[in-house]
Structures are given as C-alpha cells and as structure tokens.
C-alpha cells in the first residue's frame, strides 16, 4: 500500500496544526476517536457571532490518512457557515485525498470531528456545560483529579 500524493502532502506539510489559546472566545472543540482504536482527532473552530467559521486548528493521533483527513478539513471549513459545515459528508474527503476503502473510516472520523466542534461551540454559546469536546473533557478531568488530590 503506497500513499496518495495528496495524503503525503498533508502529512509532510500539515495545514493549521495546533491549538487556540485557552482563553480565546468563540472556540468550539471536538475530540473524537479513542487511543485504543489508534485514532484520536481534535478539531478546534473559531466561529464568529454570525456563525461563520473564521479559523481552524487540528491535532491528530493516527495514521497518515487520518492526519491528512483532519488537515484537509481545517482548509475545507474555513469561511463556511456552520450549517454548511455540518452538512459536509466524508465522501468529499475521500474524493479529495483518494483514500482507499480501508482508510474510509478516517474520513468518517473527520466528519464527526466537525460536527463535534460545532456542537461544542453551540453549547458554550448557550452557556451550557455539556461535555462535547476534549478541552471541556480535559479540563473537567484535571479539576476532578485535583479535587481527589
């Protein structure tokens, strides 16, 4: 199995790797996957009050195709309204990266990451404390650990 050029490109020159500052407003964070599956994607979106995605960041633990899928997604969603982004199907990612059948699940995870990030942004905007994302999950976990001392 050799890798497609697009996948290699995203792997060697990933777009938008990183995280937004913890105190930055308007950020939605989605963390999907699980370490025991070998795939974890964290996608962060900065969304303005009009619901348009201004910027995105990603970090991924996973194979080359998973990294490429999440990297591509950060480019794909910029400038889109969240309703548009919610409608993005994994097949768009498969087509762009020429993913073979055995790697399609990477694109599905990336689609889930978009939805999770937007859902997180919505719940934060509504002032809720629903744990829809890793940042929230992570912070809650730290607070929990400290409480247990």
């Amino acid at each position: 199995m050799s890798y497609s050029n697009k996948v290699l490109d995203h792997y060697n020159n990933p777009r938008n790797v990183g995280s937004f500052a913890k105190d930055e407003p308007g950020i939605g964070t989605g963390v999907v996957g699980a370490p025991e599956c070998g795939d974890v994607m964290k996608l962060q979106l900065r969304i303005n009050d009009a619901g348009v995605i201004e910027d995105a960041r990603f970090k991924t633990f996973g194979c080359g195709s998973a990294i490429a899928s999440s990297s591509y997604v950060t480019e794909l969603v910029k400038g889109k309204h969240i309703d548009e982004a919610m409608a993005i199907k994994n097949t768009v990612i498969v087509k762009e990266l020429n993913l073979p059948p055995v790697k399609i699940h990477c694109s599905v995870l990336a689609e889930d990451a978009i939805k999770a990030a937007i859902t997180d942004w919505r719940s934060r905007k509504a002032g809720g404390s629903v744990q829809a994302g890793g940042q929230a999950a992570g912070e809650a976990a730290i607070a929990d650990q400290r409480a247990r001392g």
Partner: protein
Amino acid sequence: MVKLPIYMDNHATTPVDPRVLQAMLPYFTDKFGNAASRNHSFGWEAEEAVDKARNQLAALINAKSKEIIFTSGATESDNEAIKGVVEFYKDKGNHIVTCVTEHKAVLDSCRALERAGKATVTYLPVDKYGMVDPDAMRNAITDKTVLISIMYANNEIGTIHPIREIGRIAKERGVIFHCDAVQAVGKIPVDVERDGIDLLAMSGHKLYGPKGVGALYVRSKGPRVRLTPIIDGGGHERGMRSGTLNVPGIVGFGAACEIAGREMEPEGARLRSLRDKLQAGLFERLGEVYLNGHPTERLPGNLNVSFAYVEGESLLMGINDVAVSSGSACTSATLEPSYVIRALGTDEELAHSSIRFGLGRFNTDEEVDFVTERVSREVKRLREMSPLYEMAREGIDLKSVNWRA
C-alpha cells in the same frame, strides 16, 4: 554515507547472502535434475546436493541428517507438525498446549483443529515480557495432551522462552514438544538434544537463504515421533512430505545454515551491540519510550519499542526511507493491532504506537546512527501534532478521559 532505503525489517525476511546465491545457481541450469530420479546422473547429483544440505541443517541444530524433512516453508512445517501429530496420536488424546503469542501458522492450525472437533487447545498467557510460565505449562498438561507447541523466540518482540525447562517438562510428562524456531535458528544456539525438542520448524528466508523453502526436524529416537502427512503424493521425505524437492532452494538453505553456524557468535555480538546502540540512542533523545519484550532474554538484532502519543503507521510514513514494521492496527492486513503486544498487557494505545526494528547481517553502524536521528526527529514532530501528547503535557490522565469513539 548510507544507501537509501535502509532495510531494518530482518524478522520479516532477509536478503539472500551472495555466497548462498552462488551455491544455488548451478542447480537452476546445469545441475537441474529431480532429486528423486534414481536412474541417471542428473538425479544422483541433485540427490547428493540435497543430502549435503540435510547435513548442514542437521549440524546447525544438533540433529541427525535423516531427521530433517524439507518443506515449502515454516508455515507448512508448523501445519505438518501440529496436524500430523494430532491425527497420528488421536487414540492417545487430543489436547494441545500452546501460547497466545505464537505465530499465526501455529495459532491458526490449532484453531482449525478446534473447529473441526479434532482437538481441544489451551492457550497459555504470557507475562509482561512475553514469557510463558513453565509452572502454568505443567498445570495445563493432562493425560489427554499429545502436543506442546512453544516457539523458541518471538518474531515481534524478540523474547526467548525458557525452552530447556519446557523441554524437561515435556519429557517428564511424555508429551511431544514442537518448537517453531524460525527466528532463533542461525541466530542463537539451538540444540534439539540439550533443549529436549521433538519437532522443530525452520525457514530459509529468515537466515539469508531463499524464500519458498523450510524444514521440519522430526525426532527419530527418545521418542520416535510419528506424523500423518498433510500432503500426499509420491511418498518423498520418508513418506512425510510428498512432492518434488526444491533443489536450488534446499541447496541455498543448506549453505545459509552453514554460514550461520560459523558466523553466529561474532555476528550475534555485533548485532547485539548495534541494537543496544539504537536503543540507547532513542531512549536518550526521547522521553516516554517503552521497550516491548524481555530486556535481556531477547534476540540479538531485535528492538521493539512504543513511542507514546505517536501512532505507528504515521511514524512509518515519516521515515519512509527506513524499512521497519509496526504493531499498529493500520499496518495490519486485518486492521487489528498486534495481538502479541496486547498479550503483554500493555495499554492498547501503546500497541498502536509500537515499532519493530530487526537488525541483520548487512546493517551498519552508520545506518543505526542515521535511523536514530531520523526516528527521533519524526517522533518529536508527530508529538507536536498529537492531541494525546498535548493532553498529557497538561497533566491530564488519559485513562480518565471519556472518549467518544
């Protein structure tokens, strides 16, 4: 100056040693006879070459020449040993004791027998280093046990089992001991008498011989082991394995065994020191690297480590001018992470992060230096891209996180 790509996957296969290739060539074109042709010189010279190879193999494991039968590879040898014994001794019993980290050729043969209702199998667990417990072995044996099957050394993590003790237990209880010694033969001293082994599988392409040829050692005395053949035909190899012999392959296998026997000690020492250098180099440059397998009871050229927070296939992609392998699910044909690493009890995430380096005869010091730098750089880069690394650095206990898979 290193020549790219670098090959460090010698547990998967090895290049044919030029000396082995030289030995084989005449048998393709000039001395091309069928070793079973009894009536002319073409057959006689082929038979002579096969006999010489039989001696060379036997010498490497301290067996008698007539106890060696040639096969198409160790997978066939394992199949023959396991299925052949269970069939022949079915009136005596039908229980097998083996171990969860065996090669698929052994595990799948056992499972096939279970499915067919021909055997019941006990799969012994291993400790965190991948070693089987001789006491657990003792306790697992019943009066229906006809076979023990334990590999000499594991192909993924390099761990060497306590073979001599298992051989003793097998003798005590009168059970036939089959040993898949594919990774050990030619690399560390294997002695069927000292080790108490009754059946042994070996493979040409694991010790700088050609692919497509293997052998099965079948003990002739103390006890005499009998087998029902799985391949029927002209009755070759004392009726145990029919089919025209792969003469060039066998000649190559023999030559490879002779070279291995002669060079085992200095080569073992050289590989051990290269491997230790690679291991030290990686541990020095990176934190959170974990060794998989036993720290000392281990094949000289094997290094299997997990780089926490970095998935195996992505690392292989990043070092694409270095050939190694990984225990990650993404690199397996079945999308399962390595069952051997999982059997050690380590976290599944570390199975996905494991890389196996297999150093061999043709690897050099410069290559080890190059690979150390390359791997370290790539691990650092991938950790910067890893959400798990980020969370760990923030002090989050990954085990306490509620993942939405």
